[in-house]
């Protein structure tokens, strides 16, 4: 059985061309880019080239607006902590209820330790930001607005450029966690009101352990890591040169594959989604189907639990993921599903399929083939499902 990987929002396979580009930087090209001698100088050139490749992917005005980090999480943390320090007199943060933990956990910590007041903007049942609430939270006390470009669980896209404009009006800095969006949707930072943007290498076919933070020229910034002049003193620590070169190559490849993501990958996703909705009763798509990443579909299967579905998929060689509480070891369903008010019977049974340019039509076929039977079997087991009339029951357990 051919393994089918549909969990690309979790991580992607490193592109062989990226691996190839990286290899010399473990061997001949081992020099420290900060060194004057020739060993370092040529490496320094490669680091600069990678920066330009990223600049292109992001449509940034200057290559030095890119700061390499070790991960998307580090980029997010840097953006938030830097802003709090750089904007004296302002101590409020606006974010959303559906952000990635890299943003949410830090905001909660800052709130708890009394370092910031945080506004968590809610979403509607389609995962769209509550614009009314956003507007009314904006004030001259707000230091930073941090909102994700695209949601990792549902793929729902926020209107980031417009949201950034609003933040600018009150003089707040605007950061976006674009970890899921970069490489999948076109981004042009030049001329936008976006001050900072985070990205992560391993979500776009570069290796793990490398990420980047874009900081618009002129935006106030305070480094998170001190102790060296690397990255123009904005992020100390000897550069991860193989990772940087790999990220640069991955950015270059992402530009050439962007059209593929928007067309072929999207068509595969749409075919998968349509077939599932047609063949499996009582399921629906979570999130905003129109404003959405081209590679993601998150489907709620009513009356069954997500881990049970995943176990069956895994046995058939299919890798996907679930927001189900039982899978992760936490006892609560995903905060994204809760924020969207997805009913419990469906939230517990939500499965995310995330594709990439590595996927082929047969992958999708395999899932379409396997899934209806899995759901049928699991629903046979469910007290909420009456097999005979293929519909939900009136089951009401004790202490519900």
């Amino acid at each position, binding site marked *: 059985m051919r393994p089918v990987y549909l969990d690309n929002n979790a991580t992607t396979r490193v592109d062989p061309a990226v691996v190839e580009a990286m290899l010399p930087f473990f061997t001949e090209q081992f020099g420290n880019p900060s060194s004057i001698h020739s060993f370092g100088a040529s490496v320094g050139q490669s680091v600069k080239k990678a920066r330009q490749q990223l600049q292109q992917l992001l449509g940034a005005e200057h290559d030095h607006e890119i700061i390499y980090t070790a991960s998307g999480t580090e980029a997010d943390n840097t953006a938030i902590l830097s802003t709090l320090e750089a904007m004296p007199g302002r101590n409020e943060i606006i974010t959303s209820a559906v952000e990635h933990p890299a943003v949410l956990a830090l905001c909660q910590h800052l709130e708890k330790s009394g370092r910031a007041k945080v506004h*968590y903007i809610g979403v509607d049942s389609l995962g769209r930001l509550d614009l009314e609430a956003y507007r009314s939270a904006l004030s001259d006390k707000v230091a930073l607005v941090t909102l994700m470009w695209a949601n990792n669980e549902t793929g729902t896209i926020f209107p980031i450029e417009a949201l950034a404009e609003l933040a600018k009006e009150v003089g707040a800095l605007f950061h976006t966690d674009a970890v899921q969006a970069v490489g999948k949707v076109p981004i042009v930072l030049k001329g936008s009101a976006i001050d900072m943007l985070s990205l992560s290498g391993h979500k776009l076919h570069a290796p793990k352990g490398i990420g980047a933070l874009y900081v618009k020229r002129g935006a106030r910034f305070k480094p998170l890591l001190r102790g060296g002049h690397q990255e123009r003193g904005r992020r100390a620590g000897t550069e991860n040169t193989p990772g940087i070169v790999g990220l640069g190559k991955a950015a270059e490849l992402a530009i050439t594959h962007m059209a593929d993501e928007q067309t072929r990958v999207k068509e595969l996703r749409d075919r998968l989604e349509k077939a599932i909705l047609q063949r499996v009763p009582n399921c629906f798509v979570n999130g905003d189907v129109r404003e959405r990443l081209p590679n993601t579909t998150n489907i709620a299967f009513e009356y069954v*639990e997500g881990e*049970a579905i995943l176990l069956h998929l895994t046995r058939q060689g299919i890798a996907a993921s679930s927001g*189900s509480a039982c899978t992760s*070891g936490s006892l609560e369903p995903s905060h994204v599903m809760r924020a969207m008010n997805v009913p419990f019977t469906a939230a517990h049974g939500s499965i995310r399929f995330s594709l990439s340019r590595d996927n082929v039509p047969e992958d999708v076929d395999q899932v379409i083939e396997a899934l209806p039977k899995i759901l049928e079997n699991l629903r046979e*087991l469910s007290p909420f499902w009456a097999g005979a009339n293929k519909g939900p029951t009136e089951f009401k*357990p004790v202490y519900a």
Partner: protein
Amino acid sequence: MWDYSDKVKDYFFNPKNAGALVEANAVGEVGAISCGDALKLMLKVDPETEVIQDARFQTFGCGSAIASSSALTDMIIGKTLQEAITITNQDIADFLGGLPPEKMHCSVMGYEALQAAIANFRGEEWHDDHEEGALVCKCFGVDEGMIERAVRMNKLTTIEQITDYTKAGGGCLTCFDKLEEVLAKVNAELVAEGILAAHEAYSLGAADAAEIKAKAKAKKDAEREAAPPTSPLAPASPLPPPSAGMTNLKKMRLIEEAIEELRPYLKKDGGDCELIDVDGNNVMVSLTGACTGCQMASVTVSGIQERLIAKLGVPVRVVPVKSHVH
């Protein structure tokens, strides 16, 4: 994913005795959909001999919940009710070659369904203890009886174990003190009965409560790192004590007033809110209509909390409780 035993996998992938049992004369339905699991156990019992002739299950839940239910049916078919009633959740877990600690509550659900079904056969109303004892953990709707039983039957000696077996304490952890109290009490009983060695027992003050609390929190934080967190709108941090200036009576009045002011808004959205009790900084309210799920996290709760804080000028924490547990 989880490291399930081969037997768990087998019972999950090839569940025995699944589906509805039309001629069932004993049915037990337990679980909480909001927390992700529910089980309907159906038995056909010979009225003369009280032998369980057939057993079927329907389960909404994860791999181990389905495996536990199926294993239970296999374990009880052919037994008399008298024999079956002695089966504990640990027996179910043992039968399956063990369960991951975080999944022990799946076997507890099996145990409860069996007790409920037997009560149902005998024409008794099964009291799951969730009604009798006071609700200890509001996040997961777990009461004293269930915790006591879990501690007793499984000889639990730590708070973390209680969370693994019953889910209690897996949320906001405001129930910590009470959990500790129940644990110490039952452990002391077990020691007196010679079931537990004295040095194993958890006793109040023997360990530093704050330390255990911090540990539980650290574990939870680690889980959060790995998994999406709960709604950030949850009142997470313990709040400082209210300013000394206000009398309790005055505070109570203000709270009542604030809630009365809010109710029209909630009603407009099809919800309602009732003040149940005030205990120190905790304002217990019962919510209806709006999200009344198993967690405290909801926009409504934080909205009410914000209003109360604004009105009182002192920090309070709004705790949603169930006005009636059914």
